[in-house]
């Protein structure tokens, strides 16, 4: 293992950073959105399409974010206003997103991201921090979206635990009725944070199609959205742990590809199983843990209807 492995793990983990963060914020409001995969796909395809058409990195990112938000909006209308089952709605969003991405992406297969966009996302060293040995080249010689990922987790952490809005938000997820009685606009909070979740998932998708891959292929997310949902549990709903979870899985994601160099006698397809197997193991370990502290928001997945006793 060399430094380049860790650098690549960060790159592979960055889409997860955004997706986990998005789902985490969504779940803090008590909404369980299983449509992460779908929103990522919608974001990825729209981001890519805009990139091909306009060759403008800002517009591509905006397009992807907006598209993820639209997905989240559909989910929000159905589960918050129309009080549909959150699990099934999330699944529906994933199915819809997969169909939409493959529909829109039909003509894009084989196209490459325009050169100026590639340049825009190119790695650059952060002065001073980048000079630290080992840590510098791994963490501080990366692309703009990686840095934004670091920043987002810090902002999200401060937002959730140090501000009044964050407190209100956590209250909505923990005990919706109590937050409502205290005068928190429950539906408004839910909508806003489901939307923020969608925006981040869209961005995560854009990172995949514009930076990580960077060309179009069908089912570009390959289950990363679902891994993100699982990693929210792994991170104990704590934004400060998001980076650990994401980069750990970034590493697992690329290990199969990297290990080929060493001519192990194991099929690459079996090593590709690793992230999924590890996700399952983590799920089991967390659920088998005795203590319930650091657990999910208490009202996660519950539908709230005020006039119901």
């Amino acid at each position, binding site marked *: 293992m060399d430094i380049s492995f860790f650098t690549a793990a960060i790159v592979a983990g960055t889409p997860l950073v955004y997706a986990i963060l998005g789902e985490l914020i969504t779940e803090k409001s008590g909404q369980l959105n299983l449509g992460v995969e779908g929103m990522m796909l919608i974001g990825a395809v729209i981001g890519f399409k805009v990139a091909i058409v306009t060759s403008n990195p800002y517009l591509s990112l905006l397009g992807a974010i907006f598209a993820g938000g639209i997905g989240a909006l559909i989910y929000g209308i*159905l589960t918050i206003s129309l*009080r549909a089952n959150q699990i*099934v709605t999330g699944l529906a969003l994933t199915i*819809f997103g997969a169909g939409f991405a493959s529909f829109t992406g039909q003509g894009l297969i084989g196209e490459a991201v325009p050169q100026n966009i590639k340049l825009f996302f190119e790695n650059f060293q952060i002065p001073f921090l980048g000079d630290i040995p080992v840590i510098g080249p791994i963490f501080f010689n990366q692309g703009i979206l990686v840095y934004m990922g670091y920043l987002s987790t810090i902002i999200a952490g401060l937002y959730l635990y140090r501000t009044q809005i964050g407190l209100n938000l956590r209250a909505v997820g923990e005990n919706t009725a109590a937050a409502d009685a205290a005068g928190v606009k429950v539906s408004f909070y839910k909508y806003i944070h489901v939307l923020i979740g969608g925006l981040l998932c869209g961005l995560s998708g854009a990172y995949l199609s514009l930076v990580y891959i960077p060309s179009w292929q069908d089912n570009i997310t390959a289950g990363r959205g679902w891994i993100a949902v699982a990693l929210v549990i792994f991170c104990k709903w704590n934004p400060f742990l998001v980076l650990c979870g994401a980069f750990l899985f970034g590493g697992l994601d690329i290990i199969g590809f990297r290990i080929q160099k060493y001519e192990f006698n194991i099929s690459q397809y079996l090593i590709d199983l690793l992230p999924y*197997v590890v996700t399952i193991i983590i*799920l089991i370990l967390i*659920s088998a843990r005795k203590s319930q502290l650091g657990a999910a928001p208490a009202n996660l997945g519950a539908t709230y209807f005020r006039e119901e006793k």
Partner: protein
Amino acid sequence: MTMLRMASRTDCSDKEAAIIRISAILLAFLFAAFFIALLGHNPLSVYSSMIEGAFGTVYRIKETIIKAIPLIITSLGISLAFKLKFWNIGAEGQIMMGAIGATFCALTLKDVPPYILLPLMGAGSIICGGIWGAIPAFFRAKFKTNETIFTLMMNYISLKFLTYLQYGPWKDPEALGFPKIQGFAQNAILPTLFGIHIGWIISLILIVIMYSFINHTKIGYEINVVGESENTARYAGINVKAIIIYTIFLSGGLCGLAGMIEVSGVDKTLSVEITHGVGYTAIITSWLSSLRAPVIAIVCILFAALVQSGTFIQMAFQIPQSAAQILQGMILFFVLGSEFFIRYKLSYIRKKKVEEL
């Protein structure tokens, strides 16, 4: 000026509910028509050629039924799990594992007569699919591990495993390096009746069995109790953990059987594309059928028609086949939204009237 009020209701009759759901599906088609028009096609002609594509000729009807068979069996399996409020979205993987189990029998027992081999393949597929479902069920029962993510991860694991088999140990040496698994010998292929492999008879029988299993057996009753309230089930002395594991084994087993029927009746070999996304579509169909076995048959035929016509309109209008998938998602969205009107009552109050009182 009017004010909107909402109150929960419990008085919605089955007939009313059915009308609301069907209207939602129609609305979804109407909504989709708008987008078809945006793409520059005439929605009416697209829809009519979709019907044409699914039911227009005897051949197309047969194709539609062939697509409906795995969908029906998988939906029956999924609905069993959903009855338990166990969100099994691992049907995709369970189908693959079932197909792998059946293929293993077919590839190793080449000289066995079909009347022995086919039941063996069926049993193999049920066991493999069942175990694939029972693993997450075990952890859900024991630790309450989140089954949604678990079953989904199992899908990816089986996909990678199947890829490994196809590119590795099971690669057909006679295929000149092309990664494909050997085609089945005649003894491993399902016989046909009226031009369609006998999977259609199997699915009809399964619908009847499933209906009476859920409504008229003791285990069916237990599944209902556990699904509605685990605490009450414990209170009544039902072994909740065992019910969860057995039921999901059955659920996965049915999905596995669907995989066997696909390899043996349709593809006559195994490949990574074996599922054709049936595992995901079946989630929609089970939900739309309110988990009722007879309704599942109807909904699945309609969805199979949708898929079949998707291939047709791709040729006729150059609309990508995935349009059918988008349409499926939209139907699900609309029906999900319509549930609101089944569970809640909306009424308008004239604000002026309120002030007067």
